[in-house]
């Protein structure tokens, strides 16, 4: 065992877990990484390209190497960083990216082929022969690429999303974040404190420091207790603020249930936080120093080594060496010695380096190579050209610290290089408005400076909002600033890794330089540096420094790539936020839904609506049988259909008629009170937009209807016309689609049926002719509106009642009309009857068609300036000769296929001889064969001609006769009867 004393783990409880099937134990407070190290496991995975053995490199979310698959079955989650996976009892983890066992990966042969996989290999290889690409190269690359594999099963867990608002959002709960949160919370401001860790404290948990009289974790606990008692502060643990978006909006993911064996409520929550001010106190990430063979398991960041020892009491090896270019590495060495560990060497390139404790110091030296096949065993130390080998099972590398300024550059804020810090610092301006940076992330890296800076930054941010906050008494803490020396890599002829996750070495950067991929954005894409799950958190700055050295430019001249959201990987599931399956979008039910469901109706999604598609009866084997019956019953007796989903807009005001004249291509102001008119709306570009009916209930009161699909957009357009184009008109609009249930009552017995429900209303043809409308009462006093309009071609009415009465009205009509053959019908029968009658619907109003094509060219009035009128006069529009026709198969057994294109008989079936297409098709029980509607060149002049419909997808052609689109009652006698 390599567990030390102390640490922030609960030794009273033991958690069992497995890695690659083998059982281990750990304690609450452990991460998978700390538990593996404490169990002496160093080899945890294989590298991306070369399949080199890899171990744990970091102690936080920056981890590039230790990616594992967590859990199994449908919950299996690939590419999870072991360093942030909180240990739970029963956790299963497996390593990734190897063929055969982890310690004998067959694809390790790639390492021998490394010259082949150099920078830009994607672009340079697999180019020829061309035929090999699809059959050989691509499958091979796909198999070898990527790390973990998905489970390919549905995610069984629930996800959620939520909205939060605050005065101050504090990102990071280390020294600076806690001091800031305390300052802000005591002032009474609304504060959110978010940290990606499951425990507050940040780096304070990873150091053996004292704050005032208390050891650091105890001081943290005291602050946490006070924060928890304040109602105006919310602590979000296990929450990563992953992106800064516009106007103070931040995206955050709270891992609610990731640390539980089975998530209890939701697995993760996506928070959208709107913050008036934000403090980024995300601390720093250590960087390493590339040297030959620097990627063996056991080689890790020195600060991570310190964190494992202090926070998790986990030692990765008995003998440890440190390679450092700064005083902070010596601090690690001293801490390890104090913990009783054996430090075999501290290697420091500075000749004047001083030891901070009892350990062998190699001043003026570098690490020049390493040994150990599946884990580090020795390091080679070179001083003045003379190498020596020293035993070490772990090597801590300390190359300096980079501020975590990512969110500060999410609005393209360019970081600024600081020679004093040997790091990029957030720029004073250009970051997200309202965001300031505090603590180590702003270059205020000592504990004392971070505490003070955090408190001051919170005070300043709140002062901006007019909230006075006083600075809390902060404890005395370490203020040791430490010296550092710029050492960006150790030159040598062997491969030295810069980016572990993407297997990018110093040589690759040199090659990119040779090949003129020198700008940093090119460097990134040519070498894949800084890509994938870690986004180069431990690699980018080092790589820039190497490139700067090669180009002879300074680091600031070389520049930095732009950080973009997300800061750490975000699952697609949580971005969905639970909007899946039935929750994908709102589901709207029609007023008669309960009645239709009780009748056993089959429903169909129409946009958000669920509409009754047809009403099967016992004995009907196919949907067609049902639909044919509904059509024939309606045409023979009377059918009833819920048409509530058609959009309804109430238009009132002195100028209502004049307003509608400008919206519809045809005149509406001239419509008489008590009458209805068909109306066609155009888009401003002259194409047909939507159609419907327009009823005038009073001099200053119209009700217009739209298609179901365009109810929203048409209403939007009407408001645009009212507010933006003609604001001087006296007119008011409101959508009443959901307020009124509307039932279509169609068929020769429609009048007889309605007579049984209206309250003494004269329905005779003289009193209430075709296209009449009136307010009335039905069923003994129920407020209603009646419109004599027909979509089916039959004598028909639409009866509207307040929505809550729709269901009862449907039941009543079917009940009292039983002897008249009253039959409910659904959207299928509705569609069949409108095709039989030749009415245009969504298929014909597809945004590419014109009034002229619909056979309504003459409806477009030239006497008024309606939307779209002017543009119908364009040359190309006027020259359009395709027009709506009916189509009937010459052989009645043949099908008519919507979408098929139309050709003259004998003509080549290509684009140049295309004469139109079929828009709608169905089986017509009235005609006794399939029928269709379509747009055909010079259609009107070609009635009776036989043409060909081509269906190249099925390799079929059908001969069709061109007929009138009105298959039923072409004279319209039934409507007016």
């Amino acid at each position: 065992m390599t567990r030390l004393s102390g640490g922030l783990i609960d030794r009273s409880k033991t958690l069992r877990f497995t890695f690659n099937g083998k059982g281990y134990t750990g304690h609450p407070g452990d991460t998978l990484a700390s538990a593996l190290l404490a169990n002496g496991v160093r080899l945890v995975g294989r590298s991306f390209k070369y399949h080199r053995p890899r171990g744990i490199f970091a102690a936080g979310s920056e981890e590039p190497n230790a990616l594992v698959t967590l859990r199994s079955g449908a919950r299996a989650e690939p590419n999870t960083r072991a360093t942030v996976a909180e240990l739970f009892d029963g956790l299963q983890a497996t390593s990734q990216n190897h063929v055969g066992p982890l310690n004998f990966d067959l694809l390790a042969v790639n390492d021998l082929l490394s010259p082949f996989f150099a920078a830009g290999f994607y672009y340079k290889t697999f180019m020829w022969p061309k035929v090999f690409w699809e059959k050989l190269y691509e499958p091979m690359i796909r198999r070898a690429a990527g790390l973990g594999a998905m489970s390919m099963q549905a995610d069984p867990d629930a996800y959620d999303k939520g909205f939060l608002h605050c005065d101050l959002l504090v990102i990071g709960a280390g020294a600076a974040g806690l001091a800031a949160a305390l300052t802000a919370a005591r002032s009474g401001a609304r504060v959110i404190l978010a940290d990606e860790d499951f425990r507050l404290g940040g780096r304070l948990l990873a150091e053996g420091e004292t704050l005032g009289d208390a050891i650091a974790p105890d001081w943290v606990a005291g602050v946490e207790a006070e924060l928890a008692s304040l109602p105006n502060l919310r602590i979000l643990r296990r929450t990563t603020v992953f992106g800064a978006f516009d106007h103070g909006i931040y995206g955050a993911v709270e891992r609610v249930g990731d640390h539980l064996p089975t998530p209890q409520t939701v697995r993760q929550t996506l928070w959208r936080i709107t913050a008036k001010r934000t403090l980024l106190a995300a601390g720093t990430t250590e960087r390493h120093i590339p040297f030959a063979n620097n990627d063996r398991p056991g080689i890790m960041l020195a600060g991570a080594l310190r964190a494992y020892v202090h926070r998790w009491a986990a030692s990765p090896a008995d003998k440890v060496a440190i390679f450092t270019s700064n005083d902070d590495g010596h601090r690690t060495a001293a801490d390890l010695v104090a913990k009783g560990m054996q430090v075999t060497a501290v290697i420091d390139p500075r000749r004047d380096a001083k030891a901070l404790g009892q350990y062998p110091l190699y001043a003026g030296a570098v690490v020049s190579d390493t040994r150990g096949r599946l884990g580090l065993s020795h390091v080679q130390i070179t001083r003045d050209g003379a190498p020596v080998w020293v035993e070490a099972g772990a090597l801590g590398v300390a190359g300096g610290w980079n501020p975590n300024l990512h969110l500060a550059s999410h609005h393209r804020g360019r970081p600024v290089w600081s020679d004093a810090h040997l790091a990029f610092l957030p720029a004073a301006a250009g970051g997200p408005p309202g965001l300031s940076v505090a603590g180590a992330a702003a270059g205020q890296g000592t504990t004392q400076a971070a505490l003070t800076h955090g408190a001051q930054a919170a005070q300043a941010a709140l002062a901006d909002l007019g909230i006075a906050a006083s600075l809390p008494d902060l404890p005395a803490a370490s203020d040791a600033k430490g010296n550092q020396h710029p050492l960006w890599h150790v030159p040598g002829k062997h491969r030295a890794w810069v980016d572990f996750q993407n297997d990018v070495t110093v040589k690759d950067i040199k090659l990119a330089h040779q090949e003129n991929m020198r700008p940093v954005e090119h460097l990134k894409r040519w070498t894949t540096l800084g890509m994938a799950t870690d986004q180069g958190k431990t690699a980018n700055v080092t790589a820039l420094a190497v490139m700067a050295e090669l180009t002879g430019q300074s680091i600031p001249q070389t520049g930095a790539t732009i950080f973009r959201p997300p800061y750490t990987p975000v699952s697609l599931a949580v971005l969905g936020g639970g909007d899946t399956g039935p929750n994908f979008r709102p589901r709207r039910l029609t007023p008669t839904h309960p009645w239709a469901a009780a009748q056993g109706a089959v429903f169909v999604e129409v946009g958000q609506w669920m509409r009754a598609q047809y009403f099967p009866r016992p004995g009907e084997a196919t949907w067609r049988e049902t639909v044919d019956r509904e059509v024939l019953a309606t045409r023979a007796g009377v059918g009833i259909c819920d048409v509530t989903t058609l959009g309804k807009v109430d238009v009132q005001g002195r100028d209502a008629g004049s307003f509608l004249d400008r919206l519809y291509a045809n005149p509406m102001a001239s419509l008489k009170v008590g009458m209805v008119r068909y109306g066609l709306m155009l888009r401003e570009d002259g194409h047909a937009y939507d159609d419907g009916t327009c009823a005038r209930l009073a001099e200053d009161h119209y009700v217009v209807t739209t298609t179901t699909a365009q109810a929203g957009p048409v209403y939007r357009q009407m408001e645009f016309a009212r507010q933006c184009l003609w604001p001087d008109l006296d007119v008011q609009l409101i959508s009443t689609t959901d307020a009124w249930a509307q039932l279509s009552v169609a068929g020769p017995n429609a009048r007889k049926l309605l007579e049984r429900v209206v309250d003494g209303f004269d329905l005779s043809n003289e009193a209430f002719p075709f296209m009449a409308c009136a307010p009335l009462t039905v069923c003994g006093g129920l407020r209603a509106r009646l419109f004599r309009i027909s979509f089916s071609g039959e004598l028909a009415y639409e009866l509207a009642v307040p929505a809550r009465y729709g269901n009862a009205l449907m039941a009543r009509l079917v009940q009292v009309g039983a002897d008249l053959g009253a039959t409910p019908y659904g959207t299928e029968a509705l569609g069949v009857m409108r095709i039989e009658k030749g009415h245009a619907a969504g298929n014909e109003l597809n945004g590419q068609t014109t009034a002229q094509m619909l056979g309504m060219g003459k409806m477009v009035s030239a006497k008024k300036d309606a939307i779209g009128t002017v543009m119908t006069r364009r040359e190309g529009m006027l020259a359009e000769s395709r027009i709506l026709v009916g189509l009937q198969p010459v052989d009645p057994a043949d099908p008519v296929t919507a979408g098929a294109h139309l050709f003259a008989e004998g003509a080549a079936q290509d684009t140049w001889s295309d004469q139109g297409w079929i828009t709608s098709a169905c089986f017509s029980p009235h005609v006794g064969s399939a029928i269709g509607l379509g747009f055909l060149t010079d259609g009107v002049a070609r009635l009776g001609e036989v043409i060909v419909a081509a269906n190249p997808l099925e390799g079929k052609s059908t001969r069709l006769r061109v007929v009138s689109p009105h298959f039923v009652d072409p004279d319209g006698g039934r409507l007016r009867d």
Partner: protein
Amino acid sequence: MLIPHPLLGPRDAQEFTYLGDASLLNRPDGMAEGALAAFCDYVYLRDNPAGVHRELWFHEQGDRSWLVVTRNTVTHEILGAELARDVALRRQK
């Protein structure tokens, strides 16, 4: 994004539907001479500035006001918002 609604205060952009360039307020007179050419410009020609842009947003999930929002397309900074109706009425005077 947050849109500063002149009547309702700051509202989330998710409540709005975006249309585009506020030049759509300047609809030509369809009955005037040369209307066709004027409409071709009105329908198809738009400036696409990198910088300050006046644009139309519809508060569809709200009070159904059309707004003219002045926004910097580069920084997304919102410089102002007013009711499109007020802008249109001013234009007519």
